[in-house]
């Protein structure tokens, strides 16, 4: 800092950091892909108080929300391979657990994490849909599944959208912890670049800019989509 910022480095590293965006997005998308349906189903188990599952979901949510994500990363990253390899040895599966790309662990951790968040999002969104909607659907001869698919979910989704957006933004930000698993994402790339000339301050500014751009773009996309989904609502804010 004493010599001011190294602007050339700032610009170069910006693009290096930018090149980490695909992997951050990839993890985000995969995590959402699994977490959305999973979170929805588990939310249903909580709403309908399905005996064992509902308890399970509750404990699960409380653990995941209660502990720092970096700890979850660590626990998964260090214990899952151990468990798997002892399982593999036991059943004589001739596969090397350690050839697995760390991105798989990222999928696991972030899917787990996002699922927990989404359970709560869907739970509150579903509870805003009037019970009468389900009854009306049943009374015109729709099955439960049809009623959910065509009537309940589209309405719950609109309510859930802002929170799903928040969850997505948080997820994108959380992928920056992927450095702990040697994932070539935004933060790690920028930091490795910084290491060459020790331009950490510049690197952090770049990281800041990249996340800011990425997350506001995602936020914007969500707002657009939300507008479309809620076309039936009287006024869209």
């Amino acid at each position, binding site marked *: 800092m004493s010599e001011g910022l190294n602007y050339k480095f700032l610009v170069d590293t910006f693009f290096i950091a930018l090149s980490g965006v695909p992997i951050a997005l990839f993890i985000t998308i995969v995590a959402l892909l699994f977490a959305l349906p999973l979170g929805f189903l588990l939310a249903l188990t909580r709403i309908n108080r399905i005996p064992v599952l509902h308890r399970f979901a509750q404990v699960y949510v409380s653990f995941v929300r209660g502990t*720092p*994500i970096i*700890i979850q990363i*660590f626990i998964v990253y260090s214990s899952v391979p*151990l468990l798997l390899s002892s399982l593999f040895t036991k059943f004589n599966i001739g596969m090397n657990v350690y050839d697995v790309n760390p991105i798989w662990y990222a999928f696991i951790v972030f899917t787990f994490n996002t699922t927990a968040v989404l359970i709560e999002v869907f739970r509150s969104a579903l509870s805003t849909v009037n019970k009468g909607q389900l009854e009306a659907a049943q009374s015109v001869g729709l099955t439960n599944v049809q009623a959910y698919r065509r009537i309940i979910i589209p309405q719950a989704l609109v309510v859930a959208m802002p929170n799903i957006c928040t969850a997505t*933004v948080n997820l994108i930000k959380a992928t920056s912890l992927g450095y702990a698993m040697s994932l070539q994402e935004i933060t790690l790339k920028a930091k490795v670049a910084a290491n060459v000339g020790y331009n950490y301050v510049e690197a*952090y500014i770049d990281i*800041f800019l990249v996340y800011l751009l990425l997350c506001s773009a995602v*936020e914007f996309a969500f707002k657009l989509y939300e507008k479309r989904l809620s076309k039936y609502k009287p006024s869209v804010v």
Partner: protein
Amino acid sequence: MEKYFDASYIWESIPLLIPFLKMTFMVAGLSVLFGTFLGFILTAAKIGKSKFARKVANGYTTILRCTPSIVLLFLVYYGLPAIGDRVGLNLNNIHTAVFVIITFTLQFAAAMSEVMRSAFQSIDKGQFEAAVSVGLSNSQAYRRIVFPQAFVVALPNFGNSLLAVLQEGSLAYTIGLIDVVGKANLIIAGNYNAHALEIFLALAIIYWILSIAIEQFFLKLEKVFSKGKQGLKTA
């Protein structure tokens, strides 16, 4: 597996970790305190009449929402002294905790402003109207009728944000502030990086218990303050 995993490390490290919750609480507590205050100002800007203030407050929220905490922490920790340098202030001797608290205050305020705004807006305008119609002044109407109800609505989200600060506070370790996560790192370092899993499990247990306690506390709080509010059942 048995070669590496030794549960005794979990139980032995817990008593070592617990004293460091004090730092965790201090950082979280002060950040929440100041953050709530700043959040209040932001909320006022968001629901107020000035278009400019609203734009600023919304922009602030977006930017903070989009910045990973660790990045924000570094920007504050190195950025503030650098700015101070320009204006001839030496901020290098300020305690690290101050920077951490500033960081999480900024972040908590952004979250809080959204929580408070939505809580405030969820209160039917009729409540305010009824209050002024029985002769209360505007500020009396807010203080006695609107805010108490908004408070109850805001409580659960406030609890969530509080849990988040407690967890994010762990990042303070990266700039050398030793809270409960920092202590865990030191214990691991003391073991030459061995048995890290057990120490982190101990940490997870502590956090888990803590968050359950806080959750319960907030549920109680909600019950106490929601007198007169219809018990909403989830579908």
